[in-house]
């Protein structure tokens, strides 16, 4: 069997999380709204209305373009894309065609073994969303709520080489969109939509075979699965000597199967022309500068820096930069703590992340601030409290908002390392449990843990367990 490689390009539509729609004052977000309740004359395409551009949508698209290393154009135009569909109330979509908002750009996708795949961006522009149609009871129902929601259409070159890479790209894109705060990027809610163009060719070949387009994939897992199945199908077809036809396929989530929607017809003629109802979009250097000062360090850059600057393993760096506020939290804690960054990473990865997951919070929402966490680690380092006390403090700080030191002082949680105090409790325990002492001395060494536990219990956990063990061993040996 020939060794094939997949050639995959992804076409994404990203719903920007602006307050209002792109050309009118309706709310952009209609989640849970009854059909056709979040509309106005403009977005429902009544006769005589005109679009007025929401600059916030442009600004969010600018941030995304800059993060994708694309060139933001100082002059771009909106165009009309003309076609008939009931959920498109004007009979044309306002999009960009000839002179889009940005050109070029790429995302360097990290691969195993420190390699990276450069995924080039072929298209990046702003447009308005259409409404939704559905069939019910022999009728076609239309909901215009989504009409005019701002979208960025972003299309990659055919640079991805496996289903896993396609999934990785979407994961990184979703991470980036949330990181930038430009989209909620929830695929299940349609904030991030993806069509995949898939073809295969013998590994090493430079030509492109006819591709199929997979539509209606609503999660990253579904993209991975659908693309993988399509790669396998195409390989089987080719092995059987068939040629691949340019079909449009639909992913059926329930059956986990691809269905043929239609043979790809000749390219539709959308009769694009510049939208006369909107002025050319001029983006001045000042405007661009004022927006791009808000461009944060990007997740992949920060991930790399965490490895080099803090000596973190890639695994740690990856998890800590999965989400922007977590990575900020990490760095603030490292700064406040001043000690071993890996130790901070362990605390975050083991304890803080669990807390976040349980509470469904992001790091910036915690009452347990980076300074608090740093203080807890330092208290342990200094031997003031033991590890277990430290972990219990996480919840206590989160619940009360008090500083760890204040809680330690009030609840008397400081570790007792006074030899005499522990020694007298150890003597008490030995005196109260003659039977266990007998058994221990007859060789049941495993009882030592029990003795230590008794001491800790009497001292409400404040004793240094290592010291307690040493004293008990000394007393029982006598």
């Amino acid at each position, binding site marked *: 069997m020939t060794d094939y490689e997949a050639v995959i390009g992804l076409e994404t539509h990203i719903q920007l999380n602006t307050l209002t729609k792109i050309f009118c004052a309706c709310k952009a977000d209609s989640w849970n709204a009854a059909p056709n309740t979040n509309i106005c004359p403009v977005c429902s395409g009544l*006769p005589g209305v005109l*679009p007025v551009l929401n600059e916030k949508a442009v600004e969010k698209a600018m941030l995304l373009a800059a993060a994708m290393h694309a060139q933001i154009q100082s002059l771009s135009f909106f165009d009309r894309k003309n076609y008939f569909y009931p959920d498109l109330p004007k009979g*044309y979509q306002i999009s960009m065609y000839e002179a889009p908002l940005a050109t070029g750009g790429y995302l360097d996708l990290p691969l195993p073994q420190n390699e990276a795949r450069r995924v080039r961006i072929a298209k990046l522009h702003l447009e308005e969303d259409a409404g939704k149609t559905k069939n019910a009871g022999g009728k076609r129902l239309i909901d215009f709520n989504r009409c005019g929601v701002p979208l960025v259409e972003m299309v990659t070159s055919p640079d991805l080489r496996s289903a896993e890479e396609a999934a990785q790209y979407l994961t990184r894109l979703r991470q980036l969109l949330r990181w930038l705060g430009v989209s909620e990027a929830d695929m299940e809610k349609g904030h991030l939509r993806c069509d995949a163009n898939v073809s295969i060719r013998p590994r090493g070949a430079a030509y492109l075979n006819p591709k199929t387009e997979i539509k209606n994939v609503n999660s990253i897992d579904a993209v991975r699965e659908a693309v993988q199945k399509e790669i396998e199908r195409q390989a089987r077809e080719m092995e059987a000597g068939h040629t691949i036809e340019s079909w449009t396929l639909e992913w059926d989530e329930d059956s986990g199967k691809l269905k043929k929607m239609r043979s790809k017809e000749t390219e539709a003629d959308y009769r694009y022309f510049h939208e006369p109802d909107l002025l050319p979009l001029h983006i001045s250097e000042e405007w661009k500068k004022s927006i791009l000062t808000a461009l944060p360090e990007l997740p992949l850059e920060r991930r790399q820096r965490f490895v080099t600057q803090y000596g973190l393993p890639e695994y740690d760096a990856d998890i800590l930069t999965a989400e922007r506020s977590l990575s900020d939290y990490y760095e603030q804690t490292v700064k406040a703590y001043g000690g071993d960054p890996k130790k901070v990473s362990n605390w975050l990865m083991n304890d803080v992340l669990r807390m976040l997951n349980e509470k469904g919070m992001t790091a910036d929402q915690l009452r347990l601030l980076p300074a608090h966490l740093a203080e807890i680690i330092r208290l342990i380092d200094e031997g003031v409290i033991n590890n277990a006390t430290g972990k219990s403090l996480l919840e206590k700080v989160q619940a009360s908002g008090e500083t760890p030191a204040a809680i330690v002082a009030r609840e008397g949680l400081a570790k007792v390392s006074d030899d005499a105090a522990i020694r007298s409790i150890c003597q008490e325990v030995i005196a109260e449990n003659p039977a266990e002492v007998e058994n221990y001395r007859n060789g049941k060494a495993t009882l030592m843990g029990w003795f230590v536990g008794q001491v800790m219990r009497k001292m409400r956990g404040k004793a240094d367990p290592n010291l307690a063990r040493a004293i008990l061993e000394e007393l029982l040996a006598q």
Partner: protein
Amino acid sequence: MELYAQSAYELTRLLHSRQVSALEILESVLKRIEAVDGRPGTLDPGEFTEEDRRKVHAFITLTAERARAQAQEVDRKLAAGEDPGLLAGVPFTVKDIFCVQGTPSTAGSRILANFVAPYTATPVARMEAAGGVMVGKVNLDEFTYGSSNESSAFQPCPRNPWNPDRVPGGSSGGSTASVAAREVPLSLGSDTAGSIRQPAAFCGVVGMKPTYGRVSRYGMIAFGSSLDCPGPIARDVRDAALMLQVIAGQDHHDSTAAALEVPQYVALLEGGVKGMRIGLSPDYFRIAIPDIQTGEYALQPLPEAFSAAVHRAAAALADMGAEIIENVPMPNTRYGIPAYFVISRVEAASNLHRFDGVKYGYRTSQPVQDLRSLYRKSRAEGFGLQPKLRILMGMYVSAAQYSEQYYRRALQVRSLIRRDFEQAFDPQGEYRLDALLTPTTPTTAFGFGEVYGDTVLMQYADQLTVPANHAGVPGISIPAGFASDGMPIGIQFLGADFTEEKILRIARAYEIATQSEEWRKACPQERQ
């Protein structure tokens, strides 16, 4: 003089001095409309009678009750000592291409006959906010596609008040007819290639196309979105200035409406023309019609009466201190119509996409198998001939394989036409014009059925007006006498971007210079 025959300016004066009430003005106007307008246009007009032939038929919808409420509000404000606005108590009509909340807004088309707008167009809202009293929606060519009003789906269509066997012009024919017949002093029209100025010339009234962006287009059902301009129609220049004052200015519903101060047009009106440079161009004294077979342009001089009217006006203005600059080249004027044919139709076809029988307007009552046949049947039955022709032409010239050779080329021609004006008005240039003076139309109002049906010839009625739409510059047509057929002749002043106050001033100067001339005493009533 009866109240209905007074100018808007005079009416506001009478109102403010409490000599009349807004309601009295309105009742006078409604009575006049009843006397001269005849039955309104409808989709199902039945037999055309001799009585119909003699009437104006400006209206599609009379909004008398809405007007009474508006007039009462003006009277209440006056009584309460509140400012009732610049247009207080002035009745006006609105071309039925503008949406007005709660009124049928038909565009003169079957496809929108049942459409009641849920919102009001900005220029109408501004007139009402200024105390103006809208008395109704007036007829037009279907979707404004025409120069005679004959294409309206609502018949009988408007007739020229100076001679009922002549067309009023178009597409704002209902507007100019209602003003010329002294049904109202003001009307709101729209101009895409001359649709305000041409019917104003045909009906012997003043019509102004402001600079593109001077007046918001919000609520005006679009034809050629890059060319369309709402504008005032009045019987004299002062009223036009007054109305422009009210409707002009920035609008947060229209990003193409310019964020510029609106000058005090009325206050600046009588500044005179001393030292102004007014140009005449040979390219506006001939008409170029392409030969269908060869594509060659045949140049025909304009009828003598038209060039004479323009030269008389030039002489009058020169007497008042203006400098007349002759032989200003405007060489691309002749390409205005072909370029317009392409650009306006590409935009029109796209603008008409939304009328699909799904959301509002006409939907076929025939059974349909699928969505596509719903679209096809609704559009086939709902649109008249003119929209269909524009859709066909617009789809053809914007198709991927033809767009380069038609649409792109037309846009280049448009830039050349714009350059003609830039050179003529360039303050550092050779001509340094304040305005260009031209005839408005190559003919007087033609008879019903004379031109209709020949879409190309009909379009050439706009040859002298369309360049201003391509270039975006302002233009005003004012009456300048009568031709030997007894019909009015219009002359036009074109200015540089946003210099409405200048061309209004020049037009007003011409009015003053000719106010005692005999032809000014004529009025349509006596000719009926």
